């Protein structure tokens, strides 16, 4: 199978996967009781109104009085025409909501991802090269600390120290500042630091163990015997094979962290990003928005896996498209 056909097949499969995931999410949401309806009824009762009327009013407003299949087909049609509907909980189109949230999330997630991908394997290989020395222990300790401490807790502590006490950074995130500005870099330093320390641990440990395997391999011995510098030997002969198994865990781990970590960090630092958007959409049972964000994450996951498979073949030419 050629590269083009392989990618095409994977993309088509991605379409099916996204449809299945979206359908399941839609069905689960439809089966759950709607808190807005409950709340409206309670509110009406407390205000001396009629809960039944209030319930009916909210159901009509939210379109919940329509049959399930009508709501489902409406949504599916919308998905493929890029009309992702109106977010009831934010009073704006879903695409606009996802777009604006992504704008803020990207500002910290891109540096976070790049730093994790670069620093994780580097620290891991460095640790393996100095195995059982104090440098290895220090790096391992750092990795475990970052992995063990909950991001929200670490975030609040750093905010307290650097925001409230030392006042180096603003306590609340300011959406006014330009993306590429010193102010933005300053206010994003702590969120990025918290996220990097949270995600670097696993990457570092895996790459340390993987590279330990290769540093005594025959090809390393040959390289050393030929007089290759340690930096070059580790970069070409250890780092590269280490990255092959690492790339399988990397994408999955980062995606898993993406939603959970970014939600808590966004809450602590008041960043209006994707994590908060998704979480609040779920809580408010804003069906259009939940499905929009689900679709977005599905898309990211599918593309991520696709990239991962392509990276495989680039890093290790022995892996081919055949037999897949």
């Amino acid at each position: 199978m050629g590269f083009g056909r392989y990618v095409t097949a994977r993309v088509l499969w991605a379409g099916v996967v996204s449809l299945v995931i979206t359908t399941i999410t839609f069905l689960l949401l439809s089966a759950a009781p709607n808190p807005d309806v409950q709340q409206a009824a309670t509110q009406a009762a407390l205000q001396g109104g009629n809960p039944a009327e209030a319930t009916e009013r909210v159901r009509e407003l939210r379109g919940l009085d329509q049959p399930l299949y009508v709501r489902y087909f409406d949504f599916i049609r919308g998905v493929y025409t890029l009309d992702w509907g109106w977010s009831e909980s934010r009073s704006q189109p879903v695409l606009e909501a996802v777009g604006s949230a992504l704008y803020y999330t990207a500002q910290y997630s891109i540096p976070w991802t790049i730093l994790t991908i670069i620093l994780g394997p580097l620290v891991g290989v460095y640790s393996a090269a100095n195995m059982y020395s104090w440098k290895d222990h220090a790096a391992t300790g750092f990795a475990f600390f970052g992995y063990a401490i909950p991001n929200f807790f670490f975030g609040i502590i750093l905010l307290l120290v650097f925001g409230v006490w030392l006042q180096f950074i603003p306590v609340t995130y300011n959406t006014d500042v330009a993306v590429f500005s010193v102010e933005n870099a300053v206010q994003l330093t702590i969120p990025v630091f918290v996220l990097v320390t949270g995600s670097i641990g696993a990457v570092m440990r895996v790459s340390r163990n993987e590279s330990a395997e290769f540093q005594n391999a025959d090809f390393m011995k040959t390289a050393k015997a030929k007089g290759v510098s340690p930096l070059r030997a580790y970069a070409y002969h250890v780092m590269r094979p280490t990255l092959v198994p690492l790339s399988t865990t990397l994408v999955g781990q980062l995606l898993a962290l993406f939603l959970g970590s970014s939600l808590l960090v966004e809450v602590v630092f008041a960043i209006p990003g994707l994590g908060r958007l998704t979480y609040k959409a779920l809580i408010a049972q804003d069906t259009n928005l939940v499905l929009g964000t689900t679709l977005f994450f599905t898309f990211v996951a599918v593309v991520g896996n696709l990239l991962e498979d392509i990276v495989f073949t680039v890093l290790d030419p022995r892996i081919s498209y055949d037999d897949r």
Partner: protein
Amino acid sequence: MIVSLKFFVYAFVAWCMSSRDMEDGDDPRHVNRRQWLSALGLAGAVTLAGCSGNGGGGGGGDGNDTDDGSDGGDATTQQDVYATASAASFTTLNPIYNTENGAGNAIARTLDQGYTFDENNEYVPLLYDMSTEDGEVWTFEVREGLEFSDPYGEVTASDFVYLIQEVHQSSWANSAATTSWQGVTVEETGEYEFEATLESPSLLWPESYDPLLYPIPQELLEPYVEEEDTEGLQEDEELLELQFAGNLGPYVLDEWQRDAGTRYSRNDDYYLQDVDELPDVFNDAPYFEEAEIRVIEEEASRLGALETGEVDSAAIPPEQVESYQNSEEIYVNRIPQPYNEKISVNMRDNGWNTGPGNMFRHTPFRQAMAAAIDKEGLIQGVFRDFAETHFTWQPRFSEFYPPEEEIPQFGVGENYGSEVARGLAEEAFAESEYDYGFDGDAMVNPDGDQIQLDIYHSAGQDTEQLMADFIAQELGENLGIDVTVEAIDGTRFNNEYWTTSDFPTPETNDEGEVTEVPDELVDTVNGEEVEWTAPTSTNPGPRNVTTSQDWDMSVVFGLNTYPRNPITNNAFFDGPTAFYNPVGYYPGFDAESLFEQAQAATSQEELADALVELFANLAEEQPYIMLAFPDSTVGYREGLEGPIENFSNGWNLPAWRYE
């Protein structure tokens, strides 16, 4: 587990923040040795917190308060920007559909409503003045000189009349004010005047907030009204972005960034600047060039922002107020509220699950419970003294609060303690057909077993849990009742214990008139036969009609006591068939007549007479075991003038300023 850990951590950090020494006024950018040492000390504290893990959870405040603050950015000063912090983002800023308090504050920066009430609870006309002679026909006089943005021109009576008739009273629009205008006949009587005729007189109509309107241009509404386009009306950008507001609010909305907040700039043409009847301070209002509402969901972050000056105000949980009281940068206001803390006792058949009958149905027993709980101890221990004792269904600041000597004050002074509580319980036992009594210290049922009751509180609400524990302890010590404290999710309690959708309904004819009431919906109350002709989920019928789960007592829900318009309380106490009566309370006095008397009153004196008598009776009967009115505690940056320790706090927000 994770959630509780999270709350613990947040509470801990919030405590760390609040306990910071703030006595010096150093340059915030300069790091002195003390600050570094403090930072180092924190690392130790964090380790300890992780090891000991003995936190009791946190939260404290309700987290939903909207408070004030200012941006401490480099280019601006406090006088330039007036920012507020909101714990929650806004669903919509469309004035026709908004039902949220926080979004209401965001809209209010840009768009005034018809009227407000000042610190003396006096009516203050803003967009229009209301007057009546009999409480039935109300005249609205629209202020002249109110302007919408181009191209909509001046605000006139027809804009309001059109809004009421074509939107609020329509069957298609489902506006937030739909229920407020049902049954009201509205007629335009002049360019700046219209009349509203009520179905029955109501002297306190303005106090109910029902006649409160936003000004919306008729021309903007017309296309949607013609098409009956609900979706279009909800999603209209001019409404969502408040672009039509003209000179009708203190600020102009520049941007609404969902999840981040709103930004405004000063409205130089604000109409209140030229209004003579308001205090002079409004002549230059507003006093800030810009305004902002920042959405900061995390309480610790909000308090941090308050401390650093990024916001000027934030709600402060009661347990942290003390640490701010000596601050030179922040002052704390204590604002009385009408929302109560009480024990709901289940008088229906699925209540009192510890023996035959239901002792909660006997007034002396409810009085005994009220007398067994030390209200002042509760306020001191649980609310840190930031609450008022609650004896009847009104807070003390209500003008309809009965004279102290006319109401029994259970739970304080000589009306508190084991002796008085047991005496009242004995009275209840004598009324009961079952052989309840005391065996030594314990209250026992006819089988001689100790009375065992459960009390529910919302899971994760620490104040509620503390309160429930305190109640359990007091009822155990003073009445010998073994109380089990149970945590429950609020929504689950509401759906399975508090309300039900499964109840019998009367038969009706085509006109909707009731033709036959089933036997389950009939009960004898005070010797008279009463029919539940309109059962609801919150009062599904007589005491034999119950929710799906058994329960004895609950502190899950507090209720509003409506001090401005106490007639609204008829929803709770207007006889056994009252609209909202989950506990199955049957008044032992003629509550219906008193509400009718209040409704028909033609003078304030008649109204007060009826209401005072009503509240004296409710204090006697204790339909819910009334405990406390917790205050709202809010911290403001020093120098901010305007906030008052009054229920009307914020009525003059455009005139708030720094000294």
